[in-house]
């Protein structure tokens, strides 16, 4: 009796993963290298222990309610080191997570959300096309966070951009400054940022982003955005006497 070779899709599986191959144009070794990069992160050991498959993370997850997304499957794929499945998730599932960390209720103290943070970082750092695509719409949010230290700012409240914010959004955005000044805390009398961030804090943030690989990741995801942000940062830092 002769042994018939299995279909190509299931052969040459050096990692003996449980999942069939997908993304056939990407070599297994390249997928493996990405996974090794995730595992090499210092945070990894705190984010994954074992998994009961109890589903508490899925039930707690707001994204799982609306998308075909499961933090349990993220943890399971990682626990099994299923390189093929992890690569699929890195190109798709991880961008369905809102990073709210409700999944941290895990009875084994896993953090599927934390794993996703690492998977996303590796995806961005390595310039995966899907990561660039996923982040395309977030240029303005990233710009706000990176330059002002706050996220959504009041002047982003525009009826055309956020129709789901209700019928009063136009009225509010027309008189934005007035509305903001009506708020009791003075630190909220802002329109270009969510609240007043001190110069010292901004400088600290800029230095952290420059000295960690955050700016490199931005460059990998969006070169133009990287240049604009760097300009703003350099100006502030040079005014404060830092050489960039």
């Amino acid at each position: 009796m002769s042994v018939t070779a299995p279909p190509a899709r299931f052969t040459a599986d050096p990692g003996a993963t449980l999942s069939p191959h997908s993304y056939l144009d990407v070599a297994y070794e390249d997928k493996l290298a990405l996974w090794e990069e995730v595992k090499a992160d210092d945070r990894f050991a705190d984010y994954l222990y074992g998994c009961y498959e109890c589903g508490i993370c899925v039930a707690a997850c707001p994204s799982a309610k609306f998308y075909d997304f499961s933090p349990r499957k993220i943890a399971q794929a990682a626990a099994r080191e299923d390189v093929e499945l992890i690569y699929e998730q890195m190109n798709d599932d991880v961008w369905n997570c809102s990073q709210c960390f409700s999944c941290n209720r895990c009875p084994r103290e896993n953090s599927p959300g934390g794993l996703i943070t690492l998977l996303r970082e590796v995806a961005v750092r390595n310039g995966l096309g899907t990561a660039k695509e996923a982040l395309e719409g977030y240029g303005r949010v990233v710009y706000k966070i990176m330059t002002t230290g706050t996220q959504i700012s009041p002047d982003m409240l525009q009826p055309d951009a956020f129709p789901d914010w209700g019928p009063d959004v136009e009225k509010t955005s027309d008189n934005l400054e007035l509305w903001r000044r009506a708020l009791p805390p003075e630190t909220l009398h802002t329109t270009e940022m969510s609240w007043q961030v001190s110069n010292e804090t901004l400088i600290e943030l800029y230095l952290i982003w420059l000295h960690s690989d955050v700016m490199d990741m931005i460059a990998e995801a969006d070169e133009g955005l990287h240049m604009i942000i760097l300009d703003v940062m350099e100006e502030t830092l040079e005014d404060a006497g830092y050489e960039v």
Partner: protein
Amino acid sequence: MPSDRVVVIGAGPAGLEAARLAAELGSPVTLVEKMGVAGGMPVHSDYAALTHHFRSASDAMGEMVGAVTSNELIEMRVGTEVTSVEGELGDFAVTLTSDGAEESISAGAIILATGFKHFDPGRETQQYQYYELPDVITIAEAEKMLKDENFVTPSTGKPPERVAFIQCVGSRDRQIGNEYCSKVCCGISSKQAIEIREMVPDARVFIFYIDMRMYGYWENEIYWPAQEQHKVNYVKGIITEILPKNGRLVVRGEDTTMGRPMEVPMDMVILAVGMEPSAGTTAMSGILNLPTNKYGFVETAHDILDTVTTTVPGIFATGAATGPADLDDSISSAGAAAAKAVALLRSVAVPV
């Protein structure tokens, strides 16, 4: 003064069995019980039927208490606490306190059988809003309702149409600190599910679980009958939260087999709470100088070949004082503790 007396602390199933067997082997025994009545958790928590034979708990405990009270070698001291212990193997001085009166007795060996307490889901984390929602109860409370043969939704007094069990509450949870399995809750929940289906035939009963741990014969005597004869629904996926909605409870979880989140209405939710060391186990391990593990259960000195010998010569521990135990475990280890205690006393040839 040297003594061949065995003092057994705690008159639950393990203590009763240890006392009975030590006496049957010829040793005089003092059985000390803090509560006013012997029988331990099955009696004080009003257990209905025992897992897995469905035998009435009060009948079974009545038989155990009867075997002890009818034995002339055993002196039972209820409403009494052990407040200090001094001395060593063959010559312990045990102080008993009852109604403020102290008395010292001599003992050659001591058997600790102070058991467990049910995990309190409201403790620290307000799990599942247990303190707030009247229709969220524990398996301990369900036992009493089943014993009274009046199984109703607490808030309405009417028989429930839909009942959910949630497994592993307070067990297998690193965040709570109890990483161990409490061993009995899967069996008890399944047993209760059968009883509920018999008592309220129109009720649908769901068991939400991580793993069903149906050891040995529990598998064929409870688990499959629950599914095949009593149509209990087992769903692999634990409940994350319970929300009150339109006078009912909505349980949120993941149906992991189907791979999707679920929100299901229920009339009652029964939390399968696990075991923690009882107050007596905590107090006595201190008084007897017995090391405890990180969960507070008494650590026995040896490996799996000796489950009852402690690090202190002449002191043995049995039942759920040493960790989660079902009734079979408790009775078996009680017998071992009694036999080892009596054998040790004879081997050191204590003069009587």
